[in-house]
């Protein structure tokens, strides 16, 4: 054989090898179909290391599907038409999840809370119903699920062969403009609060651009388009409560404002990077530069999302997700990455992922790209658990701090002397005196 022929032969051989490894899907997107060795390695790693998905929206879908949402709970075990259920979670090696407590932004369901977010609505009641639903999901599947509120409890669940369940709340529009409700939600087990969903709140500014919208950024309503003063009080109170501050969905200015004052490492529960795909919800470089292990940086963790809308609708694949993770790792360090799917909270996932069963395919790509076992351990939950522990530690150091007294300055219902009945008839005499003297002074 001549050198030219052997060279051509080699080229053809390489082309053949490459094309047999690449899969072309129904659309134009291509992704690496995992090599069986990498897939097997991925599955081993998921047996060893707990994978914690920081954002699964299944409970809200139960409420969409049935007049009695609790009737849907059995589908968690028998098979659910969305992305997440127990059989597939087991198949996919899921070790822990944050189920989200969520009720829509009021303007998205035709409820007008007014420019100051003051009009009454049913959101707080609906939120309590979602808490109750998640409790029911865990109780009725308590052979599989174990409710947790700390890193240690999550790890313990995994060591017992169970899936640890925690709760994250997606949006401060659910607080009824009150820090007291946040304290109660924390006592019910919430361990992160996403500062906004797709609407501004009395606390913070949102990037908007959710599913069903045209994807453009929201028009600002707060000066500076970041945190309000009340929002600052919320962040400090979240630190005191040991509840992680989640910066997915918020504007970049909100992200910066939080990083300026928070005493704890932050979380992005389900995000992507703006450098790789320009969407208002994605994280700009200027924020990424503030997260990391160097002096002055926030030690937080950024969890990458599986929603194709924020990474290139119709084009995004498993590879795209890994590209975003690697970009964050490049900017912040491999100790600051994680995974938050957004399962059951999105119309479509990236190509190659249909649901919970497909985590090994994603992890296989990390293996293929040369991530070490330790780095993958960090990615799937080690980094998150470190951040959770640091939040718990900050809570302990702040134990002498008083609960925040701050009240939304625009409220007019407090103080509530009219609760004292006609002319304060129900009030004890001394109290009535104080209340009516104050009124007189204010006139």
């Amino acid at each position, binding site marked *: 054989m001549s050198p030219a022929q052997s060279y051509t032969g080699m080229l053809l051989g390489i082309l053949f090898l490459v094309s047999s490894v690449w899969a072309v899907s129904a659309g134009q997107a291509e992704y690496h179909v995992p090599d069986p060795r990498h897939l097997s390695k991925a599955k081993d790693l998921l047996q060893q290391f707990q994978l914690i998905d920081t954002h699964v929206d299944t409970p809200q879908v139960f409420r969409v599907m049935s007049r009695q949402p609790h009737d849907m709970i059995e589908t968690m075990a028998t098979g659910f038409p969305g992305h997440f259920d127990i059989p597939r979670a087991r198949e996919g090696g899921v070790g822990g999840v944050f189920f989200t407590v969520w009720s829509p932004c009021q303007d998205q369901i035709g409820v007008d809370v007014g420019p100051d977010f003051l009009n009454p609505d049913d959101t707080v009641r609906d939120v309590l119903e979602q808490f109750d639903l998640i409790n029911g999901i865990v109780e009725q599947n308590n052979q599989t699920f174990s409710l947790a509120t700390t890193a240690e409890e999550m790890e313990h669940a995994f060591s017992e062969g169970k899936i640890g369940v925690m709760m994250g709340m997606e949006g401060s529009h659910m607080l009824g403009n009150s820090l*007291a409700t946040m304290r109660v939600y924390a006592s019910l087990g919430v361990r992160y609060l996403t500062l906004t969903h797709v609407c501004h709140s009395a606390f913070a500014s949102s990037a908007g651009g959710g599913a069903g919208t045209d994807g453009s950024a929201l028009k600002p309503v707060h000066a500076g388009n970041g945190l309000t003063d009340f929002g600052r009080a919320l962040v400090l109170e979240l630190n005191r409560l040991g509840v992680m501050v989640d910066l997915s969905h918020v504007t970049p200015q909100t992200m910066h404002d939080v990083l300026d004052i928070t005493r704890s490492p932050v979380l992005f529960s389900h995000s992507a990077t703006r450098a790789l795909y320009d969407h208002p919800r994605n994280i700009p470089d200027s924020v990424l530069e503030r997260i990391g292990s160097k002096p002055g940086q926030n030690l937080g963790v950024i969890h990458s999302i599986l929603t194709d809308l924020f990474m290139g609708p119709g084009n995004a694949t498993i590879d795209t997700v890994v590209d975003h993770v690697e970009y964050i790792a490049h900017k912040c360090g491999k100790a600051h990455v994680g995974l938050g799917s957004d399962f*059951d909270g999105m119309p479509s996932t990236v190509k190659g992922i249909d649901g919970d069963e497909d985590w090994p395919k994603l992890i296989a790509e990390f293996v293929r790209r040369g991530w070490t076992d330790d780095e993958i351990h960090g990615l799937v939950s080690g980094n998150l658990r470190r951040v959770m522990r640091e939040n718990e530690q900050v809570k302990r150091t702040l134990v002498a701090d008083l609960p925040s007294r701050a009240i939304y300055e625009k409220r007019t219902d407090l103080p509530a002397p009219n609760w004292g009945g006609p002319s304060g008839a*129900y*009030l004890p005499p001394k*109290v009535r*005196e104080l209340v009516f003297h104050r009124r007189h002074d204010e006139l």
Partner: protein
Amino acid sequence: MATSRTAQHRQRALALMTDHPLIDSHVDLPYVMRALTKKPVETVKQIAGTFPGDVDVPRMRAGKVGGLFMSVWIPCGPGTDFLAPSHDVRDALEEIDMIQLLMKESDFQAARSAADVRAAFKAGKFATLIGVEGGHMLGNSLSVLRIWAQLAFASSAGSGGPMTAVHPGNGLSKLGEALIGEMNRLGIMVDISHVSDETMRQAIKLSKAPVIFSHSNARAECDHPRNVPDDVLEMIGSGEGKNRGVVQCVFYPAFTDPVKPTLERVADHLEYMAGKCGKAHVGIASDFGRSSCHVQPRADRVDGMEHGVEGLEDASKYPDLIAEMLARGWTDEEVIGLMGGNLLRVMDEVDEVQLALAGEEASAEVYEERTDIPAVKGAWADYLPDAVRRYLTQNEEK
């Protein structure tokens, strides 16, 4: 009736109260805290000192109170379909937050069970429990009830709702029946103060556990719609077929006597109710803070005039009531029961029912008038996975 109690009776009362807890089943402090200031949480620390109104730690110490139920109360809203959005649930959570913060103060200790109460008493702290005054704060949802159970509620009033008939027969609605069952399952005492007579009867018949009247007097002694009629009192007791609950007398002037509400008249109510139900089925509630949805202010009352039951004006006065019962011939044992033993027994029995119902599933029932579930409007549906959307469409076509 003039009093026959002496200093000796008072001394005996104090001795009994040192060794056995007096539990006040209805104290309306939270709403007073909200009436006083824009930032109610600031008042939490003030309760340890002199606080405006009837209740603060110095007077509670002087009055030798052992434990109290803090009442979560917000005013009743208008409307008869109960569906209009309001801040009720948010406001109830704010009161719960305040009570949870108060429970962390050094004079107080959180309690949910009889054992918790005894432990707090032994530690020299005021055992603090939570009661909710009015089902209107449930947002028409059994889920909210379950969340209250999780937040360690020991009792929930059936209704602080309007007096006009809104349900056929003026009793429990269908959701109300499910509510009673769920409260039994969760170990939350069913409180039938404030409810209509018919609701009282239905609740007692339906409940598998002893009930409580957290703050009610006897209608035969003072004819007020808020008080308990004889036929209902006769449903409570230790006999065959009776509900083993408790009726807690209340220091509220309008329910005590229309002309001259005094300590002695409160004692008359206690004696009357004990006569009907038995001395093992009565207890004490102050209603300090003075909250009620139904009371009309007295026309002859003037701002600044002392109001309140004469002799029971504030938390330092409990021993005088105990002294009066001793003077009327109640034995030590009967008085220990009156002060708190009867209520603690009821709490234990309610917890036993909870245990017995441990295998039962949570009620999935939803208020039949609601139209917001299934939640298909707007954003609820925008985020659905495509596969779920297809599934729903397929099922519609079937």
